[in-house]
């Protein structure tokens, strides 16, 4: 069974030889290829080479497009800042308040450098791995995209106060989101992964999510060509799983390491893919033995769950993480036999 087959079997709840294993490992690729991050996150071939190095060293079952939360914002004109050891992030938003919606210009998916970079990364990974390794395209949830256009500080109050301009913003970003998501599908992504830093219990309430986010997500997800995973983006997700469960084209949920997996399973039902595991960004604080043991505990708990995929939770596994720690997790996954 190859990696692609293993992941798709978990999506269907079919028998697997072992659990699929994944994580946000972009920074490890830069480390393995000794590529400076400003080049890694702007040169698609550098990124592809990094993901190939990750695959050869760590052998995850999923490779993914660059995990840059500010990517779509950058495409709309927001300035991003590069760092030495983490993915680029928003520095200066393109607009300074929700009322400036008329200043937004939808980027050209075929020519904007940021979008072309990501598309070439997806195409390159698909060309390399075909149906051997699953390729995930990452993009922000459409309700979250505006935080990279104007900052969370402007978007949150506008959503809370039901500012009329919120709809004007969504009139621009939602069509872009659909076109962008479907373009990544056409470029070869097998499924989409959607980090949700804004539409999460850490930021908004259950009531705001039902009033504001749910109608938008229902409308947009129904237009997608490939399935998607909603990703918790580093915060707890349990309390929102019931709201989002059953959305069109929803393949599964990637939850936080602090979300009790048995409760997550109760909320999403028995046959939706659940992606969970141990804390990715803090993996560097463990010894390899601790990483191995914690991974084993998670796998044991989910041993009878056919729709489970082990995933290092959260955003990027940090640059400084010793490869031995990641390999210890990998070893635990390889040695565990699910009871299916």
């Amino acid at each position: 069974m190859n990696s692609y087959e293993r992941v798709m079997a978990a999506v269907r709840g079919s028998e697997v030889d072992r659990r699929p294993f994944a994580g946000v490992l972009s920074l490890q690729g830069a480390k393995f290829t000794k590529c400076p991050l400003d080049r890694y996150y702007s040169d698609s071939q550098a990124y592809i080479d990094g993901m190939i190095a990750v695959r050869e060293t760590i052998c995850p079952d999923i490779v993914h497009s660059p995990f840059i939360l500010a990517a779509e914002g950058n495409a709309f004109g927001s300035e991003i800042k590069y760092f030495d050891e983490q993915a680029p992030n928003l520095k200066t938003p393109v607009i300074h308040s929700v009322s400036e919606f008329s200043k937004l210009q939808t980027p050209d998916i075929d020519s904007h450098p940021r979008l072309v970079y990501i598309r070439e990364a997806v195409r390159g990974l698909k060309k390399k791995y075909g149906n051997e390794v699953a390729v995930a395209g990452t993009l922000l949830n459409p309700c979250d995209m505006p935080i990279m256009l104007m900052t969370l500080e402007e978007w949150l109050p506008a959503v809370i106060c039901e500012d009329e301009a919120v709809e004007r913003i969504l009139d621009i970003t939602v069509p872009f989101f659909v076109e962008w998501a479907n373009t990544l599908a056409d470029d070869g992504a097998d499924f989409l992964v959607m980090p949700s830093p804004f539409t999460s219990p850490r930021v908004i309430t259950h009531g705001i999510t039902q009033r504001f986010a749910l109608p938008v997500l229902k409308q947009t997800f129904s237009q997608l060509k490939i399935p998607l995973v909603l990703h918790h983006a580093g915060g707890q997700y349990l309390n929102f799983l019931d709201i989002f469960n059953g959305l069109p084209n929803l393949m599964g949920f990637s939850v936080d390491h602090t979300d009790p997996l048995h409760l997550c399973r109760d909320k999403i039902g028995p046959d939706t893919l659940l992606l969970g595991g141990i804390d990715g960004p803090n993996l560097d604080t463990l010894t390899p033995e601790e990483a191995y043991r914690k991974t084993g505990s998670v796998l044991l708990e989910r041993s009878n769950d056919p729709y489970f995929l082990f995933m290092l939770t959260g955003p990027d596994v940090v640059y400084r993480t010793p490869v031995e720690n990641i390999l210890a997790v990998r070893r635990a996954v390889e040695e565990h036999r699910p009871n299916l």
Partner: protein
Amino acid sequence: MKIQEQLIQLIGDANRNAARELLEEWFKNNPSEIFFDELLLPVLEVVGKRYISKESLSLAQAYVASKFAADGFELFKKHSSSQPSAYKGHVVLANIEDDFHDLGRDIACNFLEADGWNVVNMGNDKTAEEIVDKAVETGARVIGVSAMMYTTALNIKEVRKELQGRGLENSIKIAVGGAIFAQRPTMVDEVDADGTCKSATEVSQLFEKLWELAKGGNNE
């Protein structure tokens, strides 16, 4: 339903508009002098206990709670000729160099100001030198430094170094906040800070504790 309970419910619902309307109505019908003791502090105390105990205070709820405090403070100043009786001293808050995520810092500033602190809100992307300069200039004994991400949070180490270099580390304390400190429990020690709190509603208590520690330190 008593107004306190109504406000607690509205904060829980993150309904800022209705909370503001209720406050304005209250100030029309009540003497402003009783605002802090009979409305602001009891409401914030319950919000803190109710939501923090469940570890489920969302940013939206914290935002609305802080706006309730800020709106109330603004309405108090409008309706009253006196200033709030408590004066707890100057404190300096800033986002560390390279960090531009200011919502949490602004929320903390609102709570601190409403609780009687004289807040100097420096904004985003401030160097350790700039922050310590401001603390010295204002006589602040507590510096609050915010960062959202791991890499930018590491810059906070420079604040400790700056204080040490000037012989001030016993008389000025460092409070830290931001998403990374909740996600990574070791972060407070990694940046050599003196403390953090789980929620912005606890920020004034944290600053009081650190202020007392600083008072016991060497004077510059």
